[in-house]
């Protein structure tokens, strides 16, 4: 099953690249640099998904003390941190030619940096506590609390004046741009969600094997 998911993810990433570079048009005001959107937006949205899954799995762990739920939370956190880190980096690369700066402390960028640091702390906390049950419990609480930052990140562009543009996909009234931009964005979003699922499935399998090897 993991292998099938891997092949599906690889095929959809290839399709996403074809859509981003072969189908999507050159944007009128930004030029071809706007094509960064097809990797930046899916990375950020997939990281939201990762942290929501982490929070739900953490809740299940706190209620049932189910180690499988803790493994899902751990794996999802690891992949989520990688995705949000790459989302910040690609956004910064996109920002330099369009805004004239790599970074600015506006509401969207600051709140997403806080999200990244909180989940990085989540992974560090896992590594520093030796007692596995205690580490799982503390991390579950942190994972749920940190998820409260997700709506703050998403709605920051509405609540404060920011340099960052409003959301492209998840906004009131839906996507208002051209379908030649929407479809490449959707295909890439599916690709990154599949990639997320593949990495989490593989990491969960590995965490289970590690637990069995230690036992």
């Amino acid at each position: 099953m993991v292998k099938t998911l891997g092949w599906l993810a690889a095929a959809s990433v290839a399709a996403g690249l074809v859509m981003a570079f072969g189908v999507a048009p050159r944007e009128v005001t930004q030029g071809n640099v706007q094509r960064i959107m097809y990797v930046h937006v899916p990375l950020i949205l997939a990281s939201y998904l990762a942290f929501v899954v982490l929070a739900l799995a953490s809740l299940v762990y706190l209620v049932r003390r189910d180690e499988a739920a803790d493994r899902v939370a751990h794996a999802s956190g690891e992949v989520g941190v990688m995705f949000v880190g790459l989302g910040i980096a690609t956004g910064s690369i996109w920002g330099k030619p369009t805004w004239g700066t790599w970074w600015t402390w506006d509401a969207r960028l600051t709140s997403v940096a806080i999200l990244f640091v909180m989940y990085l702390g989540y992974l560090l906390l896992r590594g520093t506590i030796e007692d596995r049950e205690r580490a799982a419990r503390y991390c579950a609480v942190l994972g749920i609390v940190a998820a409260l930052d997700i709506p703050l990140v998403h709605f920051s562009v509405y609540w404060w004046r920011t340099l960052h543009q409003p959301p492209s996909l998840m906004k009131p009234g839906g996507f208002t741009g051209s379908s030649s931009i929407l479809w490449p964005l959707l295909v890439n979003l599916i690709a990154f969600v599949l990639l997320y699922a593949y990495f989490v499935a593989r990491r969960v399998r590995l965490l289970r094997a590690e637990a069995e090897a230690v036992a």
Partner: protein
Amino acid sequence: MPDNWGFVAAAYGLTAVALLIYWRRLAKKERELEALRRLKAPRS
């Protein structure tokens, strides 16, 4: 506005490299665990 293809290549290249490194790290860990399991398995 100029096309800035260098920035596009940097964004996609960085993402590809990071994903590849993570994928290889998972594969390496799996190989290590498999080797450990073989070592622990009772010999017949």
